[in-house]
């Protein structure tokens, strides 16, 4: 095979046509891991032997005429807060260095059933919060576009791993933007699905009512293929939705002529003004959507600060409750950044929490009303290009309301896709938000954008230094 990194969709077509072997594909990913991961730190635990065994099994099944779908033989990784039977699951923490679960998380189970090849466990901020940290057992992941820069988090290893082609797709989790943030800064696609669509069973909690599990991959189409395998009701997750599952790729390629796209200009132009490069990415997207025949409309919501306040209070309190026992007995064993977040829980009263949850109902109603007559809405994903990894503010939750939290508060599906390159050649992104369970429309719009723009044709320069053929 060539050194070019295929998307999941391309690899699936080649594998189905018996023009690409899952073993060759896995070996190519492993070659990139061996060449690059000492610098990127995307993996905390590489399962090389298992990956090769699974790739060989996939190859045998496919050659015997028993393919199990488009993910069969595709190398993937799992964020290290996802339980994996017999494989260490550390949650990036000193607390769980020796933890080897005896069952798989629901999402791990589903991807395995779809025939994926598990390459290993991917770097995360400690318990999916608070990084980048330099006082944990494993170092933070580095951005493949410039390794002096941050990936965003907390699904940092998944973002870095996909962008550098160490894996073709991976699992992230998102409590306030932890899928979409790394997707944006690493120049890939990542979707936080509708709350309850993908089971949280077996995944360490960050904040129960804001936590979402979702796929990250090079393209929106690849995310759709992964979501097909991941979605579905699971009685082990009390928030799991019972909703008919559509074909998530059904609307791809249909164009977006006549679709109505709302733009929340005030989020990224007033409430939290984005960088020049990010604004240029948004402007490019709006022009592209207009050219493709979509209708753009202005959307007005409560200030971003209101959404951030609501989400932050809920997140702080639910996290403090989840980790209360260890906070009381072993606070010093948390990383400094996670410890600081946990300490905040002592200052939030029960009444503060309930007021935040009452505000949540109002904000959801507001978004529901604003989206009437629209197909999707658009804003930024991140305020700017990736910061230097040693210059990430510790308390940015107070200083800079984030663009992703509103849709955790509302539970609405949201995807980040690459919208070009800004300062220093670092990626910038847009965020598209759909109505609950309308992921097919979200994929339709995101895919149309990716196919109308050249940004999916460019990988980080360091990838070109690796020969895999």
């Amino acid at each position, binding site marked *: 095979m060539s050194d070019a990194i295929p998307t999941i969709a391309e690899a699936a077509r080649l594998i189905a046509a018996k023009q690409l072997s899952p073993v060759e594909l896995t070996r190519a990913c492993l070659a990139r891991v061996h060449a690059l991961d000492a610098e990127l730190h995307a993996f905390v635990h590489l399962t090389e032997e298992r990956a090769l065994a699974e790739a060989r099994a996939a190859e045998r099944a496919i050659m015997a005429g028993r393919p199990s779908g488009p993910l069969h033989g595709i190398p993937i990784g799992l964020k290290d807060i996802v339980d994996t039977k017999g494989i260490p699951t550390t949650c990036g923490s000193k607390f769980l260095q020796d933890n080897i679960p005896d069952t798989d998380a629901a999402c791990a189970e589903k991807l395995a059933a779809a025939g994926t090849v598990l390459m290993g466990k991917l770097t995360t901020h400690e318990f999916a919060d608070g990084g980048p940290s330099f006082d944990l057992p494993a170092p933070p992941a580095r951005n493949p576009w410039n390794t002096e820069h941050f990936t965003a988090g907390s699904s940092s290893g998944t973002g870095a791993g996909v962008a550098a082609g160490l894996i073709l797709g991976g699992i992230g989790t998102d409590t306030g933007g932890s899928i979409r943030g790394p997707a944006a800064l690493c120049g890939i696609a990542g979707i936080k699905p*509708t709350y309850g669509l993908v089971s949280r069973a077996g995944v360490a909690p960050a904040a129960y*009512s804001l936590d979402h599990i979702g796929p990250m991959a090079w393209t929106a189409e690849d995310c759709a293929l992964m979501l097909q395998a991941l979605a579905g009701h699971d009685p082990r997750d009390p928030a799991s*939705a019972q*909703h008919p599952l559509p074909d998530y790729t059904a609307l791809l390629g249909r164009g977006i002529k006549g679709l109505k796209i709302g733009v929340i200009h005030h989020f990224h132009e007033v409430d939290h003004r984005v960088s020049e490069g990010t604004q240029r990415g948004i402007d490019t997207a709006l022009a592209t959507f207009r050219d493709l025949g979509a209708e753009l409309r202005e959307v007005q919501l409560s200030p971003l*600060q*209101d959404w*951030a*306040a*609501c989400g*932050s*209070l809920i997140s*702080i309190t639910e996290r*403090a409750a989840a980790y*209360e026992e260890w*906070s*009381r007995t072993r*606070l010093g064993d948390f990383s400094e950044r996670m*410890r*600081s977040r946990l*300490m*905040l*829980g*002592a*200052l*939030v*009263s029960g009444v*503060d929490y*309930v*007021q*935040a*949850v*009452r*505000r*949540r*109902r*109002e904000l*959801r109603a507001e978004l*529901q009303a604003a989206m*009437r007559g629209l197909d999707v809405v658009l804003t930024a994903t991140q305020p700017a290009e990736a910061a230097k990894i040693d210059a990430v503010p510790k*308390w940015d939750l*107070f*200083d800079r309301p984030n663009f992703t939290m509103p849709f955790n508060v509302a*539970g609405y599906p949201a995807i980040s896709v690459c919208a070009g390159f800004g300062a220093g050649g670092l990626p910038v992104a847009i965020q598209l938000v759909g*109505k*609950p*369970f*309308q992921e097919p429309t979200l994929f339709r719009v995101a895919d149309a954008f990716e196919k109308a723009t050249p940004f999916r044709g460019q990988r980080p320069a360091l990838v070109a230094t690796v020969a895999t053929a």
Partner: protein
Amino acid sequence: MQSEINDAALDYLLARAGLDLTDEQKAELKTVHAALAALAERVRKPRGRMAEPAHAYAFAEEDL
């Protein structure tokens, strides 16, 4: 939530939460207390006593 917090109040809250902090950690927490208080103020609106929280919800037809 008051925007300022004195040492006695902070010690009470930390004791109630069961957290044993160093003096340095307490000092840091005091520096962000006002910002946290501002978040708590932001979610308070004149909504009356009947406004329900969103503890549990189901997506309805009008969401779709």
